[in-house]
């Protein structure tokens, strides 16, 4: 493999990883507050949909390329928050099983986005083609051989994702808000005793996950597919859940896991360039990322510990 393709491999890795970084970071915020979020896939679908529709109408209204795309990102975040409220209301206020209400989100997403797309676009199964983001390169740095192409020419959403991981990490571990959020996920009874509003923090955790997963879905629409249709997200939300668990519910860990998934998706495009790979059935190459994950989990990571109160209702009378 030449050095040039190595640079491209890193670049492709980051493109694939971006959506998963956003969504798994969102999952971390929800689950750190004690609310299981299996609805990441659905939230991503809603985000991808909102980005498609928002971006489309922004372009129709005459906004230039990138600013229309940012409208798409913003609509995805807002829509993600709104939808995540269904999960929050059901599982926090009405004490529904958190696993179930997460799955409900996935179910609603699959049906309702396609229904709405058909209503808005006169029976078509997808939004019209949109411009989306184009890659930006950081002046001077991009000229560094190999690394320049790899790290300093990317979609703006990739930089945003990395920035949010750092912000997310500091928020969770270095601010009073983060301490409170984690305490609610570890021991809500104790948190309540010292005057922390358990349910309010859990609502915030779920809403942050909605915004981030929504943006995650948006990045797929706005950078890779340039339209929304029923198979835009196709399982990446589940991968994000895996990345969150794999990363041990830590923003940096989730980031690392997301990059790992991005890498294993990217490498499967590159393996095919080599002559020796012709003798391997391509299904085996497609399997690689998932096989690798299991092997890594079994060999190195092992037992991962979820937040102690994850998935549990908080009932003050049982304190």
């Amino acid at each position, binding site marked *: 493999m030449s050095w040039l393709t190595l640079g491209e491999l890193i670049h492709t890795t980051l493109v694939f990883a971006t959506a998963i970084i956003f969504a798994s970071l969102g999952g971390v915020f929800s689950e750190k507050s004690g609310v299981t979020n299996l609805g990441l896939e659905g939230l991503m679908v809603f985000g991808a949909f909102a980005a498609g529709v928002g971006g489309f109408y922004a372009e129709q209204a005459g906004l230039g390329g990138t600013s229309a795309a940012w409208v798409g990102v913003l609509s995805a975040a807002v829509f993600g928050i709104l939808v995540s409220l269904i999960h929050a209301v059901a599982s926090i*206020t009405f004490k*529904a099983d958190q696993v179930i209400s997460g799955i409900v989100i996935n179910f609603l997403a699959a049906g309702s986005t396609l229904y709405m797309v058909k209503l808005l676009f006169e029976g078509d199964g997808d939004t019209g083609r949109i411009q989306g983001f184009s890659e930006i390169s950081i002046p001077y740095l991009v000229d560094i051989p190999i690394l320049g192409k790899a790290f300093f020419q990317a979609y703006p959403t990739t930089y945003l994702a990395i920035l949010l991981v750092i912000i997310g990490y500091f928020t969770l571990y270095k601010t009073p808000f983060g301490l409170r959020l984690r305490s609610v996920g570890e021991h809500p009874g104790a948190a309540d005793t010292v005057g922390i509003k358990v349910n309010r923090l859990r609502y915030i955790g779920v809403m942050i996950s909605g915004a981030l997963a929504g943006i995650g879905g948006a990045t797929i629409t706005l950078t890779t597919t340039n339209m929304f249709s029923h198979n835009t997200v196709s399982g990446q939300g589940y991968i994000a859940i895996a990345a969150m*668990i794999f990363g041990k519910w830590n923003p940096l860990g989730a980031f690392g896991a997301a990059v790992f998934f991005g890498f294993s998706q990217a490498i499967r495009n590159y393996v095919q360039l080599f002559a020796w790979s012709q003798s391997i059935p391509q299904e085996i190459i497609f399997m690689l990322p998932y096989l690798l994950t299991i092997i890594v989990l079994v060999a190195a990571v092992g037992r991962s510990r979820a937040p102690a109160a994850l998935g549990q209702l908080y009932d003050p009378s049982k304190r």
Partner: protein
Amino acid sequence: MANLLKIFTKDSFVLALVSIILGLLLGAVVMLIGGYDPIVAYSALFSRVYGDSYNFGEAIREMTPLILTGLAFAFAARAGLFNIGGEGQFLVGMTAASIVGIKLHGLPAIIHAPLAIIAGAVFGGLWAAIAGYLKAKRGVNEVITCIMMNWIGLYLANLVINQFALMEGENRSVDILPSASISIEWLSQMMGNARVHWGTVIAVLAAVFFYIFMWKTKQGYELRAVGFNQDASRYAGMNVNRNIVKAMFISGVFAGLAGAFEVLGVFHYQSVMAGSPGTGFDGIAVALIGMNNPFGVLLGSVLFGTLTYGSAGMSFSADVPPEIIRVVIGSIIFFIAAQGIVRWVVKPLYSKRKKEKVL
């Protein structure tokens, strides 16, 4: 029978019924917002399913894999496990049944068909047991392994079909041998060639097996105990790890059967798939509607099958996008899960009835 009915308490039955009504109402509201007539749409839906014998047979065919993937999820859930891998187990079971159905020549039907079914069941079970084993022995979260195993199962199924059983020039396997077919020819002819098969009977028997195993045997008791509280079960001398693997295996057997029946009873060949068929995920919805109870799963799959199969008729004759039905099903599950809302709706009815009794 009295015991059997006891698990269907009146309360849970009423809650489920009200949830279904609320879900249908919500779907109607969404249709009205979209400018469609919900009455026309729903009557088109139900008349498609229950209007003629062909469509009725096909609807039953649609319900069959849902019963089994629903049972798969519910069985694991009773043991405290989250089997999100029904999808992969379904595909692996399907592939095993295909290979046995295609490759084993010269067997009489009475041996060949059961053998293909057993192959599907065993491989589905083993596929799930991998996730169970990794959880028990290595502490790896079963959700993440199941998600990975779904993808691996998809590509493995395609690999096996492409390598060993591909029909030349087509994106599917060759047909299974007639001796492996489990179609019910005479019934199918009576129902206008609807693809009815013996798998439906086995699926219903599987629900009965689920009930007896879970609530009438020592092993079922252990599984439920582990599901309630692992530490207490360990203290009571139960082998928690073995129970986890066992629960996943049986759960996978159900999903594997679902896959086997699709090949042996319905299509008689296996397609090379671009993506997961989604039957495993639909099974989760069915199990949730049925509240992880085997007979609830049967009713849940009747409801789910009716709505999804009928939704096509809704789009034919009333021009309503069929996707709306996913919203209806989603809200039904939502209301069943968030019982607080439903209780609040039902409350006035209950108090009125009590007053009448007092008078």
